[in-house]
């Protein structure tokens, strides 16, 4: 059976490959010493486009072992990705260390909701503990200027 997600992904790669080739042609494929700025991108784009087209044909003919994205699984991962994106948006304003415990805890809840009080306590203790360790290692140990949000004034 043809996997729609796989066909869509191959199609996406094919379009990307064609676009890379078009851009490469615009950069100029040949130059004074044979190769121009677009020479290697042309090879990369052509390789991507041709192999995606090959994959697509094989998928439609049912000749390739199909992988697929399951809806429930994709939804859970989509939740983690969306949460990470929200975290990255808020980090500049709130501060990385301050926001980390909430991020770690919410991702943990998204993966599996604890059923006992002890489970909730473990999640929050882990989240806060990680933020402290990350602060000690990165900010104090490695002198990385972590985004400090409103705490930094």
């Amino acid at each position, binding site marked *: 059976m043809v996997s729609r997600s796989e066909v869509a992904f191959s199609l996406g790669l094919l379009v990307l490959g064609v676009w890379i080739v078009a851009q490469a042609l615009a950069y100029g494929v040949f130059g004074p010493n044979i190769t121009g700025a677009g020479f*290697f991108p042309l090879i*990369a784009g052509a390789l*991507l486009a041709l*192999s995606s087209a090959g994959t697509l044909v094989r998928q439609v003919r049912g000749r390739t072992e199909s992988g697929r994205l399951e809806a429930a*699984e994709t939804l859970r991962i989509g939740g983690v990705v969306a949460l990470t994106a929200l*975290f990255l948006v808020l980090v500049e304003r709130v501060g*990385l260390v301050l926001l980390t415990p909430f991020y*770690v805890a919410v991702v943990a809840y998204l993966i*599996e909701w604890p059923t006992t009080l002890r489970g909730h306590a*473990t999640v929050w203790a882990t989240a806060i503990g990680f933020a402290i360790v990350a602060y000690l290692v990165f900010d104090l140990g490695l002198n990385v200027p972590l985004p400090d949000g409103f705490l930094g004034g």
Partner: protein
Amino acid sequence: METLQLLLGGLSAALSFNTLMATLIGVTLGLAVGVLPALGPAAAVAILLPLVVKFDATTAMAGLAGVYYGAMFGGAVTSILLGIPGESASMMTTLDGYPLARRGEAGRALGMSVYASFIGGLIALILFTAVSAPFAEFAIAFGPAEMTALMVMALSFTTVLGGDDPWKGFASLGLGLWLGMIGLDMVTGAPRYTFGSVELTDGLSFSVIAIGLYGLGEVFAAVGDKSGQAQFQPTYTFRSLFPRVRDIVLCWKDLVVGSLIGFVVGVLPGAGATASTMFAYAASKRMSRTPEQFGHGAIQGVAAPEAANNAASYSAMIPLFTLGIPGSGTTAVMLGGLLMLGLQPGPLLFQERPDFVWPVIGTFYVGNVLLVFLTILLTPVLAAIVYVPLALLLPLVAGIVIYGVYSVNYLMFDVWCALLFGVLGYVMTKLRYPAIPALLGVVLGPILEQGVRRALISSGGDPIIFVERPIALVLFAATGCLVLVPLGRRLRGRFRRRQPAA
């Protein structure tokens, strides 16, 4: 003699406090990574890249390599105790290790796995030391034409590293090549695929792509598939973890043959540690007087694959160090790490940076010894790690990734890119697109482009430069074989399948 002196100097440098600590931390992390089915050594090395580049090259490489070979020791623990291979390279150990644990001999199997890993590592390291320097010396004669041929050959490993579907492997390679070309053109200075972004003019950082595709991609895949959580807990005593003299005598042939198979297979690109364990297991079974016991708890079935996977993890670094070509996912990430550290792996590395190469080889010896004690001491802890719920572990890994990626260039832009590559890595994993060719493309693509264009500039645009040297010709011919032989086999298979139908 000179090699021995260099090795002794390297060993002495490897025992300096910083390097020793890096090795210790690396191998300990490797043990933990080897235990966890949700995280492979390639992902762990990728996640650690941003942290280690803050240290000097020897310290950084000692830590990264420690993770790799440490994972080979750690993988056996859960294979034997729980029947869950933490690493694919420990899969064969499960066949006899787990039955041994089920009948109350977990300690015996664990002891043998540690001893076998040590012997495998030691034999491989002695061969590594003897072979790599002369090999690098031979490769020093390589000019731009030979290096170009070598890079083309390395990229053609996609046919063996790209999984079952070569079309998907080449699509992944094309994607990686393109990602490696984002930024300013090295000759004309023209921006390519930068979308007008200032951050992209320097190109995408290798660590961002590697962490995204491998690190976050694996985290997302593990979020989706929460299987692999341990259910059964066997019992063993600390005393029982020490190998028995009788077992050592019984398994000596399996240990030597397993180590040699591991060494040879490990050097071959794409074959890797997992394949070496299969060959070693098969050879051990064939040599045995009681082959019927294999699969039901034969101690030789633990000895041979464990010696092989550790030997393969060391020998896989020979092509990386001497030719600058990676033969596996983990060594591809390590190659990126070497470049980030400002080193150019290849024939000249042994000549120009002996102060780096020999201490790193020294850390391999030290790490191999350290792992014997650490594995025995930490076995109870390692077995317990498997019971850490993924709901706690995965957010922590995601957190480490965010902090690590940010700390490379202090840019949130990099973290956004890593997230994007994480999603891409997850989709590729689910749809069975191999990520290794993409990483090969990112690392080797720019080197190949630079080599070809420089060679053409030096020859005044005459492409004959690439085929007028015999070594380059041989390498191009070997590349042709690498690409065409699997294709020929596939076509022959298809032809044979069609014949009966006709």
